[in-house]
């Protein structure tokens, strides 16, 4: 009876660390670009929604619909237009971050206590100064909460980008499944999950650094 293939072949893994590392780096880049671009777009749209309250409904409705389209279907729609490119992958990935990020940025800024805004206005803050010095710092916890969800979601979604040839850890999973080589897909999956957890942890740290005042309250 032939020896059964083990679930993970550590020797193979050791020989191919470079390959796995390369996929991991691709994965990280796809995620970072998606979240960064998504954040910039969301930020602008959130400010528009706050300044012109009537636009908030349509903005969330549009991004909400975008959010519900299955990723595979979105790729299918985009490939004829933008081809099997990074652009195709990023358009889809960015699209999925918008709803969460816009909602959290708007909620964060609108959640700034009324008396703080009134005091800022009464002391002679202009709109921009107030946004930068008062509203954004106070909105950090809610905005970071949105970034955490968006990032973890994106890390998972990036695996799908392998289907249109954009590499990432999805490629390991894909290859592993088609070759029935468990070492590959398990490696891809484990790294993807680990990346999501690490990214989440990084945001928690970032928030702690950005909001020393929140800890002061807890320590009272």
């Amino acid at each position: 009876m032939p020896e059964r293939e083990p679930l993970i072949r550590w020797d193979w893994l050791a020989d191919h660390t470079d390959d796995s590392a390369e996929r991991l780096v691709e994965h990280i880049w796809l995620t970072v670009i998606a979240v960064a671009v998504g954040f910039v777009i969301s930020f602008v749209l959130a400010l528009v929604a706050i300044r012109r309250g009537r636009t908030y409904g349509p903005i969330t409705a549009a991004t909400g619909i975008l959010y519900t389209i299955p990723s595979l279907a979105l790729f299918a729609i985009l490939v004829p237009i933008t081809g099997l490119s990074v652009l195709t992958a990023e358009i889809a990935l960015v699209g999925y971050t918008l709803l969460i990020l816009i909602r959290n940025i708007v909620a964060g800024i609108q959640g700034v206590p009324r008396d703080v805004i009134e005091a800022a206005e009464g002391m002679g803050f202009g709109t921009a100064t107030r946004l930068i010095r008062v509203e954004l710092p106070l909105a950090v916890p809610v905005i970071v909460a949105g970034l955490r969800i968006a990032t973890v979601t994106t890390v998972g979604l990036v695996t799908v980008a392998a289907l249109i040839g954009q590499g990432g850890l999805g490629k390991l999973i894909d290859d592993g499944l088609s070759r029935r080589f468990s070492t590959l897909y398990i490696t891809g999956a484990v790294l993807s999950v680990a990346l999501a957890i690490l990214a989440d942890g990084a945001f928690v740290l970032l928030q702690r650094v950005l909001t020393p005042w929140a800890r002061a309250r807890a320590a009272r």
Partner: protein
Amino acid sequence: MVNRLIEPTSGRILIDGRDISKDDPIALRRRIGYVIQQTGLFPHQRIGENVAVVTRLLGWSRKRQRERTDELLTLVGLDPARYRDRYPSQLSGGERQRVGVARALAADPPVMLMDEPFGAVDPIVRERLQNEFLRLQEQLAKTILFVTHDIDEAIKMGDLVAVMQQGGELAQFGPPDEILARPATDFVARFVGADRGLKRLSLSRVGDLELQTAVTAHPGDDAEEARRRTLADPFRYLLLTDDDHRPIGWVDQDDIPRSGVLTEALAIPMSPLVSRRTTLKDALSMMLAADVVAGIVVDRTGRVLGLVTVESIAAAMRPPDRGVGAATDGSGPDAARRLAAELAARDDQELGRTEATRA
């Protein structure tokens, strides 16, 4: 409206004779100190940064901002070294309110707006903050527009009180004593309460009244001579004092011996001692508690200056329109009226506080 957070639909608002609608609202606000009920401190900034907010907006140098911040924290009774680097969440409500006042004073604005500044703290802290603020105002001499729902606070804090009624109508505007003594409308009378007479008592001090002279004598003085002087006075008691003119006690005119000398043993327990700074309310309360009709007014060293009686307090409280007769019989000008005139004069010198009351 004064700092243009709300624009008036009609009319003009002048500060130092300038129509503020022609000013840049942002620049205008930086010239007006602003204190609100919930303090509106920035939770993400340390106390020092909070106090320096306006000076920073005005572009002061860091060094100057810091010096000003420490100066102001000291002024409102918070040790800069202890409080500068704390966050608002680490302070009590009263401390936060003080920081709010310090912040409003940062750029030394000539005008301050205070919107129910002491509304969110408990009554004991409120009372303390009020007293501290009154003391502070004696040094600062700013024009302050102070909004409150509490008529007692308005009367205590204001040199001039504007009573607003529903619909934003001005019901009465004048010195606190006038509001209490002569409410312009039923609304004002109801608003200041049935105990407005008592409230007026806390506005005047013993020193505002013409003190009554007491018949005094020292132990060892000739009794018959003292008795004759006491009988000649409308007040039936002789005040026995020591050599430094400090009170020892009372002697009823009937108990003064017809011969010999006065002794300390004749004296019966004293009336309460009050100073010129004692409010009429406190003086009256002490007299009622001691079940006497007169209080002895003493100076800082305890020497007798004169007497304040229940009757003289009542006379001072008589409404001016009915009290004219009483005031012209030689017992001196109506204290309350004098006070009102003084306040009005002070206001003319732009040293006055203005106070508005919203109903």
